[in-house]
């Protein structure tokens, strides 16, 4: 992919009969073709068969006419989200004709023969073509995904804060629920129900609350993900998914909720079973 900022002087239909502006070179006998990204075609609007005049903003290249040969949809690519630029696709010689510098290539994609060592091929290319850098697909992917690694780390950090807030909330709810029934717990203990039974009962209750909460959270999460994806799809005109609720994520969240529930239940229960039953009735 060659990314270039191109000024697009658009002229739909056949060129006018009047003399073209002086910077525009006369159309060659065979007008070269260009593919237009769907978003650009919609916003101008343009359709197959229209003629457009294109000039490179880099340097002072000529303005040349092109016929729209087709409209294409770009693959959903997170990298383009922040800039959200529109794209044209030319045949390489046609693009070169627009640019001030000739015989230039931004990058080559190289397919190796089966069994070839990518590292040694990369070193060989760098040795032969002075000043070039050859990257394996994994290294390239790692470099180009640096932005997403940062976002991922940020989300992890926010996730930790959210878990902390949820844990405190759950603990608060459990302690309040248990405190409310301290007298009942005292009575149970006085009639012979063991500490461990009371402890288990409170923990089971906490687990039940966390399971119900996790299930409700999963449903809310699913709805929220749909809303978020629909919103960003409209904002960026993309099919990219910004929020994903996968079974693994649901299971992880449920496991975390369960662990928090057990922890909160155990702490709340400990506050009750550690006190003599006679004192549980006191205000």
């Amino acid at each position, binding site marked *: 992919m060659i990314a270039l900022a191109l000024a697009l002087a658009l002229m739909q239909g056949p060129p006018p009969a009047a003399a073209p502006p002086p910077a525009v070179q006369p159309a060659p006998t065979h007008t070269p073709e260009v593919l237009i990204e769907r978003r650009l075609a919609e916003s101008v609007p343009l359709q197959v068969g229209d003629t457009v005049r294109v000039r490179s903003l880099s*340097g002072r290249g000529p303005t040349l006419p092109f016929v729209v040969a087709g409209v294409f949809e770009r693959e959903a690519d997170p990298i383009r989200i922040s800039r959200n630029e529109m794209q044209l696709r030319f045949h390489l010689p046609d693009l070169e004709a627009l640019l001030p510098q000739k015989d230039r290539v931004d990058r080559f994609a190289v397919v190796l023969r089966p069994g070839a060592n990518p590292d040694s091929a990369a070193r060989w290319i760098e040795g032969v073509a002075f000043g070039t850098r050859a990257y394996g697909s994994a290294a390239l992917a790692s470099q180009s995904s640096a932005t997403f690694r940062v976002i991922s780390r940020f989300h992890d950090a926010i996730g930790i804060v959210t878990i902390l807030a949820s844990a*405190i909330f759950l603990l608060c709810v459990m302690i309040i629920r248990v405190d409310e029934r301290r007298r009942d717990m005292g009575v149970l203990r006085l009639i012979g129900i063991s500490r461990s039974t009371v402890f288990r009962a409170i923990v089971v209750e906490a687990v039940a609350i966390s399971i119900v909460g996790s299930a409700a959270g999963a449903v809310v999460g699913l709805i929220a993900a749909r809303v978020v994806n629909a919103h960003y799809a409209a904002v960026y005109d993309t099919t990219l998914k910004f929020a994903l609720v996968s079974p693994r994520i649901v299971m992880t969240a449920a496991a975390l909720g369960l662990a928090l529930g057990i922890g909160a239940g155990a702490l709340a229960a400990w506050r009750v079973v550690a006190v003599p039953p006679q004192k549980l009735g006191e205000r």
Partner: protein
Amino acid sequence: MIVAAFLRGLFRRRGRTLLALAGIAVSAALLLDMTMLASGLTVSFGELLGQSGYTLRVTPKGILPFDSDAAIANGDAVGRRVAAVPGVRAVAPVLGAQFRLVRGDSVSEPLFTFGVDPRSQFLYRLTSGREPGPGEVLVSVPMAADERLQPGSEVALAGDLDVSLGRARATRRYRVSGVGDFLYNYAGEHSLAMTLADVRAATARASDVSVFGVSAEEGVDDEVVARRIAAAVPEVSTYSTRELMAEMDKRLLYFRQLATILGSVAMVVTALLVATIITIGVRERFGEIATLRAIGIPGRRVLLAVVTEGLALTAIGCLAGLPMGLWMAGRLDRILLAFPGIPARMTFFAWEPRRVALAMGIVIAIGAVAGCIPGWGAVRAPLGQALREEAE
């Protein structure tokens, strides 16, 4: 007295109160961070743009500064026309180019190089040495440290490479005139500045300019000057700081919206937490409240006490959340500043007193509202039934 009695109740249930405060503090800290994040980068970017006094940018039509390798043709003539616009104090031309450091047979990665007019530039601050003259170059602080360069050192720079012959093309030796702190560089970035004429000569771009920084006269509004430039030189784009910040806002829409979503979640959590604590607290003191009502204490005073309890909880929680939020903002900023290409001087989290006060005010108001509902229920409950429940 009633209010004081209710507040003392918070101390009576110390463990529960502390937990509630911790929950509110975490929520308030998250809300604070999201408030700071929502506008942080834009505000910080605006401050950075204004630091040098050059608050306007004139670029090739439709292009943001250094967004592509597009350049303004006949830059000198355009610069003179911009300088003649009423209200313009100074115009600083910049041409961007890529050079490589040549060491024997090897060359470095491309180094972003600014061609500037050393008498009027807005990209760096001199830390040692002097401004570059003809045949001289100013290097960034990280480059000086990594390449062990200092004023007086010599460097060989190539503007181009001959791939087929395997050597640098158009290599020229430059003397390092000084070391500069480049305002828009990311952490550790190697970059150079040299005279505009030298960059033009090395890149064969005789009159090109990538961007002009424009400084307005004192007392003249930037926006007005931007409009005048746009009218006088229609073949270029003129951006005021506000417009550049708006462009930045568009690119960082994701963070602004994320901040809004997470901020809203933090507020909901706070509301739920305070409402739960107060509801159960009121429920526990149902009989107490009924007794107060029975001895003639007006319901509105009881309601006031319950609301004050919620207010006190959220206010103390917010106070505890402020330092926690600032600490978290520092940690999160460190994560986010690892974004490729973000200037090291920027921050994702900007402290804006008005916005922060508004966010904390909202949390405290949520606490008050959360207290209203159970309080209203307690003072509206039938007195006889409430007293009987207490007796049982």
